[in-house]
């Protein structure tokens, strides 16, 4: 369970996140949508403990800056985080050692699914940007986090990797993991989200629950809010 209560993040006078509250329950997939500069990446960095903020973020009941919370959190950054001088396999070994886990087979399984196993002896610097992104995803998932936060995970991925990553999202959901995904690609998330939050100017402009009904599509709602001048903060519940 990921729970965010009253998170505000300011850079000087500029308010990047203004009193944001939401939750992603166990086995739920939450989506963050919004135009550039809406504050999606900032709230994600607050959740993962990279930025200071006021308010509270909890990972399964533990404050996000505690060791207990960090153990249960997986984070895929917007820009692939890869070490130039480590091989693909060594990245996985590093994460396993740092998180003190032994499950080597799961690392191999992740690499195979994202077509990186045959490149396990390649250095990080030799990988293309898409491959680096795939490796970043494997690193974030290899310790089996209970809360997984993805910042624009589909950018730069090939069609096979996109398909496989969507399957991974569904599996994480089935295993009871709370998944939060920030994305610009609305059509790529249409079929598996549970709760969508549309951000504008650092606030939530709308929150929509996916009840499987025939109502307004997520894309229509997004354009209605971002282009139609819908009042900020007005919740559009489904």
């Amino acid at each position: 369970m990921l729970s965010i209560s009253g998170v505000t993040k300011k850079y000087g006078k500029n308010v990047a996140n203004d009193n944001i509250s939401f939750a992603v329950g166990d086995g739920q997939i939450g989506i963050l949508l919004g135009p550039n500069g809406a504050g999606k990446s900032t709230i994600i960095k607050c959740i993962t403990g990279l930025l200071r903020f006021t308010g509270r973020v909890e990972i399964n009941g533990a404050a996000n800056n505690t060791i207990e919370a960090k153990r249960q959190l997986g984070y895929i950054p917007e820009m692939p985080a890869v070490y130039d001088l480590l091989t693909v396999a060594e990245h996985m070994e590093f994460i396993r050692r740092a998180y003190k886990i032994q499950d080597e087979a799961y690392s191999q399984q992740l690499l195979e699914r994202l077509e990186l196993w045959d490149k396990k002896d390649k250095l990080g610097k030799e990988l293309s940007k898409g491959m680096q992104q795939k490796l970043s995803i494997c690193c974030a998932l290899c310790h089996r986090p209970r809360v997984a936060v993805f910042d624009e995970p589909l950018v730069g991925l090939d069609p096979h990797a996109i398909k496989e990553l969507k399957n991974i999202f569904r599996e994480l959901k089935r295993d009871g993991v709370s998944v939060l995904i920030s994305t610009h690609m609305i059509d790529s998330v249409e079929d598996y989200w549970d709760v969508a939050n549309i951000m504008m100017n650092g606030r939530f402009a709308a929150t929509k629950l996916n009840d499987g009904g025939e109502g307004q599509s997520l894309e229509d709602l997004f354009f209605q809010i971002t282009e139609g001048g819908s009042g900020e903060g007005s919740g559009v519940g489904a």
Partner: protein
Amino acid sequence: MKSPLIYLTAVKLKNQLKEAVKHPAKLIYVIVIAAALVLSTIGGQVNSEHLELRPLQELTSIMVLFYTMMFLMTFINGVNGGAGNYPMFTLSDVSMLFPSPIRPNKVLFYALFRQLGLSLLLGFFLLFQYNWLHGVYGVEYSHLLLIVLGYGLSLFLGQVCAMAAYTRASGNDNARRLVKYCVYGITLVFVAALLFRCIPGLVASAGDSPEELFTMGGFSGALDAGVEFLSAVGVFFPVSGWAAGLIGGVFIGDYLLAGISVLLILAAFAVAILLVVKNKNNYYEDVLQSAEVAQSAITAKKEGQPAEVMPKNVRVGKTGIGKGNGSSALFYKHLLENRRSGLLIFSKMSIIFMLIIIGCAVLYGVIFADEEGNTAAFVAVFTMSTYMQIFSESLGRFNWELSKPYIYMIPESPFKKLLWATAETLMADCVEAAVIFVPVSLILGLGPVEMVLCILARISFSLLFTSGNILVERIFGTVRSKGLLLFFYIISLMLLSLPGVGLGIALLSLELLPGAVGMLLGVVAANVPVALLIMFFCRNLLQYAELNGK
């Protein structure tokens, strides 16, 4: 209408000045640097009376070595397609000037003109050497400006020659290799000739007694032979030697040498430019790669990600991190990355600094030969090595680690992560201390107790500067200007050194213990607690990436 290149140069200059006025911090930075320069000049005037002046040929020899080192580094880097942070062409030149209807040769001269100005600016730090140069060689400010000019010329010609070689050998790895081997060969012959002249001097002055070989007398003979060789033959080392010959010739009034040097420099410049201009293809393609590499390095720096130095072709070797659990995995990962980057223990810069310190031990040993017990020479060497340590002390892989999210995400206490992430640097510092101060102690004839204390004192400064580095990251990490950050870094490190330096000087003056023992004990006794205290206060640095501006 004005030439677009003149317009570009003028507008850039104007905007740089405007920037300085718009950002008061930059202005303050310039004022403080100017004040430091004035202080160093006044200090040099006051302290210059008590020592007998050394011959100016020595200064010419130092210039030959220094200019040559800088020239070779610039040239080899240029031939390899690298351009450092100051490429001849920036990416904006490549994308805007190259496709424009301006003749390539005009664009080339625009870049050359700008590069000459930049090379002279890079020599600015030499102005701070006034104090000791005035004291030891009686150098005046006008002479110092000439030394800067020679330095700028060496860098500039290094880039021009590298560009000529690069364009001519472009796309032909064998030709490029041949150019490099030729340069290495000439350098090797030069070094061999220097040693050939120095070693007999060393042996002759030691007389019949072999144990006197490594005493001050021995070194003095070798030094004299080396100076004689460098000031007579070394000044003909291609390009950098000519620059040293030009400046040295003016100093000692040897205008024939200065004139020959000018002619040789002009000839080299003309040949290099002709090689570029007369190339059958224009040089655009050749500089594109170096402009792109430099641009990505500049962008990474702006984003707070230090550019990683690594060989073009990395030898993977044995795979696997092998050891480590929790935070210690960082340490073993760093060792593996160091091996792959070709860095066994020390960086190239550290090795150069080590050689300079050991060389200075020889020089100071001769300068202070009359002083009792070599304490004065040792204090001078130790002070200089500590000053250089401020610039050479880096946080190694720790800085790169800060630009990735993993170090913050690892579920361990931030303090434990901090200690393991800096362990590799501290380990290298301990080895470096021994590599520097064992030979320095032998050269200066210090006893075993002083030798051990020297090593400990150096390690205590490493610990202090490492913790100072962490402190600067913690307090000033969000400062974007790298110049300002460096400024804060140097000031902070100097302030942190004060307790150790103060206690050391006090114990040295009290003369309660023989030689420099008191000073070294004082340094260690003050530095270690200060360093540990800072590390403790910064223990939460790795709690948030934001604390260090990443």
